[in-house]
């Protein structure tokens, strides 16, 4: 067995900022990666889309560099980006070794001194950009509203996973600059962040630079964890219907599932693999390969901090009914809940997971690279060294534990089933589906 590990060193600055360093001198680049423990789960109804819009503003300038962040970094040969989800916001640069100072200077400046540079005009422009992002990725995309409808049905109105990170267009329009400033003060400070440097740098120098640029920033109060009232599973099957500009009907099934890293989370990951990853997977084989009633099928355990959801999606082949597809899915779920996977299926799923963990060690930066993983483990587990324990979750999963998780979480009597059908053809949905409207 090849060794799979992600070594690191960590120090915490006086202001509470965690600094993590991973050495890899193979290519003369350094990944700088910052996570803030804030996402759309920290928003409230009526102000959705806030965390993500804020991420855009972080690229527009800060007190001591009162202009866009892209020009100086691209001039140094950097790649850079950021992203927001329900639980966290991340920012990264991959720079030549010679430009580490520059990246840290800029990251620290926007962590400590963003507000003086935040003008009404920059705010308005980025609001327009985000509205365009929403049009492009949701409104103008086939099936683009499906997950919005599912989130709304799975979680009660006041639960922070009720809305998607992109937010509603009305909420985005209603936002005010003062609210943005307040948001920054609450969530953007060293004690709510984690900084990782990975690549062509030695830990001594990395810690020294981190302290030079970030050490002077004032500590903030660690925000209270979000504690939603409840995310109770629906006690029944909820059937919904959405008409969309699509050629072919598509079925979505969603269940509440264990939060990220909790018992059952890894099992449901493995289950997703054995149900729908590759031609040999159970549902692909049944629906697409043998019966040819579906064009595609996918399964995914969407692991998140407060609670997760497991999602199955299948698109009907022309002339085929969602009802038949649902029946075969239910049959397979029942079989898995009764008998569990075979040993051969477990071996295959584990081989894929083991390989994935190794492939994840190939890049230092960017989304999903080593620096991103170290920050993820630090933010979610308080332990950047969780890599080995994470892998162990999959190694120790058994046929029985996967069977048990399927039985426990994927009941056919407590889920949201959404039929997305071509406009004007609601009869193609599962029987008894209630129309929903999303915008």
């Amino acid at each position, binding site marked *: 067995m*090849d060794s799979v590990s992600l070594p690191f060193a960590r120090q915490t600055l006086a202001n509470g900022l965690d600094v993590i360093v991973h050495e*890899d001198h*193979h*290519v*003369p*680049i350094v990944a700088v990666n910052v996570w803030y423990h804030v996402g759309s789960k920290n928003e409230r109804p009526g102000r959705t889309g806030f965390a993500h819009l804020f991420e855009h503003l972080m690229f527009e300038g800060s*007190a*001591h560099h009162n202009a*866009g962040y*892209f020009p*100086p970094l*691209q*001039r140094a*040969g950097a*790649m850079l980006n950021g992203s927001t989800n329900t639980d966290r916001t991340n920012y990264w640069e*991959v*720079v*030549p*070794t*010679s*430009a580490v100072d520059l990246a840290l*200077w800029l990251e620290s*400046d926007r962590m400590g001194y963003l507000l003086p540079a935040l003008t009404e005009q920059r705010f308005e*422009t980025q609001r327009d*950009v*985000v*509205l*365009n992002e929403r*049009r*492009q*990725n949701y409104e*103008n*995309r*086939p099936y683009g509203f499906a997950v919005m409808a599912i989130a709304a049905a799975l979680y009660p109105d006041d639960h922070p996973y009720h809305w998607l990170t992109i937010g509603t267009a009305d909420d985005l329009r209603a936002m005010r600059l003062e609210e943005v400033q307040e948001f920054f003060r609450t969530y953007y400070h060293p004690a709510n962040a984690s900084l990782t440097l990975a690549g062509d740098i030695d830990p001594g120098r990395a810690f020294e630079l981190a302290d*030079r*640029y970030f050490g*002077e920033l004032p500590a903030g109060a660690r925000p209270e964890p979000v504690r939603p009232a409840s995310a109770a599973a629906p006690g029944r099957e909820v059937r919904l219907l959405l008409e969309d*500009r*699509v*050629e072919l009907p598509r079925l979505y099934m969603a269940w509440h599932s264990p939060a990220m890293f909790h018992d059952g989370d890894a099992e449901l990951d493995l289950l997703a693999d054995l149900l729908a*990853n*590759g*031609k*040999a997977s159970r549902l692909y*084989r049944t629906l*697409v*390969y043998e019966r*040819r009633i579906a*064009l595609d099928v996918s399964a995914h355990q969407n692991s998140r901090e407060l609670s997760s959801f497991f999602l199955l999606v299948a*698109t009907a082949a*022309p002339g085929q009914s969602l009802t038949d597809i649902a029946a075969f899915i239910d049959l397979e779920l029942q079989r898995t809940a009764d008998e569990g996977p075979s040993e051969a299926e477990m071996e*295959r799923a584990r*081989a*894929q*997971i083991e*390989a994935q963990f*190794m*492939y994840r060690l*190939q*890049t230092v930066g960017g989304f999903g690279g080593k620096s991103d993983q170290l920050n993820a483990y630090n933010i979610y587990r308080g332990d950047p060294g969780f890599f080995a324990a994470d892998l162990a979750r999959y190694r120790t999963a058994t046929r029985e534990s996967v069977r048990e998780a399927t039985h426990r979480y994927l009941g056919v009597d407590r889920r949201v089933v959404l039929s997305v059908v071509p406009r004007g053809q609601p009869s193609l949905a599962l029987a008894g589906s209630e129309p929903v409207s999303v915008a």
Partner: protein
Amino acid sequence: MPADRSRLPEVGPDPPFRFPAIVRHRLANGLDVRTIEHHTVPVVSCVLQIQGGAGGDPPGEEGLAAITADMVDEGTGHLSAIDVSEGFARLGAEYDVEVGPDATLFSLTVLSRFAERGLSLLADILARPSLRGHDFERVRKLRLDRLRQLKDLPPAVAERAFLRLVYGDHPYGHLPIGTEAALRACRVERVAEFHAAAFSPARATLVLAGPLAHETLRALVAAAFSRWADDGPDGAAATAAAIDPPTLPRRLAIVPRAGAAQSELRIGHLSARRNTPDYAALLLMNAVLGGQFVSRINLRLREEKGYTYGARTGFDWRRGPAPFALQASVHTAATADAIRDTLAEFDAIRGARPPSDEEMALARASLTRGYPRNFETAEQVARSVAQLALYDLPDSYFQEFVPRVNAVERSDVVRAAERYVDAARATTLIVGDYQAIGESLPPLGYGEPQILPPDE
């Protein structure tokens, strides 16, 4: 020492960069083998590139190269499609196929300890696929259904229509997936014939990169691929690149999409070949004009005007003349203005507003300073080396890239723009709400727009 925030820190000299040695070898069956030692994690990546991609589809058989590539992993010998998929999955291997205009690329990434098994299975399916009729029927139906779904996807509709507008009947004028009529008419016998003609070791390049010595890498390839018989036809494949595209007038065309929230745009025309001596100048020109976040067009359409989430220009490189085009999805109400602004920028870079010193420096730095990051993984390295074979570039290409870009002068960039970017030749395609934007289009000076269906 506290941070000095009065100015940005200086960036030091660029770290030295050396592209690893490429060692070439030719198997007795003619297979061109290139190996690269890439010492990081225990992962190897293999890329097998077959000359002749979708541009090799015979007229009326658009989609043949792609469906043939898709049929490769549908079984070999006594193994079914399920067995092949299972075989790769049990190794944790990542198998992928990409059909481009000039080549078809099969890639496999696998843990080093499974390299032998992975390559052996890859060689079997490539050289001796079963190509059974019932598998073919299923795969063809999936592709036809996929084609139907693409009608709802504005970027796919735009890509398809734009290629047709700029290439006309040229072999580059269609998407690899092909057309509905051609796929319906396709028979498995044609796939077998196409496979026999194109999948010959003498027309393929295999690149293997991983943390092993060259001799070991080469032995792995030889063990798996020596059995691949060279029984294809003699001579090089006829290529799309050898055929001159027709000269077509600029046009304004729209694929109507009632009620669309945005207009999907393509604006451009044919330009240079990938191996043009102007390549480095064109990369710099594009970086200034629209090739990166901090480019004139993105800053104008996204940051200044708020028309879009992002706008990019670029070359869709080929062995033959490649399209140069803007891609953007813009708010419906801003459609005509976005087109006007784009054409104005196409014009300006040719002389009225040539790149400034600052723009030149930024474009140059963004292309060169971070260059080593393009070669971090075994797969990146293997894919890069396959490109050398595809475009007839020398093994020293990556080593020489940075000095070559640094040698380009501003006047070279302006000359390249004059030669290869021309608003007066640019065809504009819109996938959007015709009723909402129709009246705003005539002032663009194109005359009445041509109305196109979503699937031709």
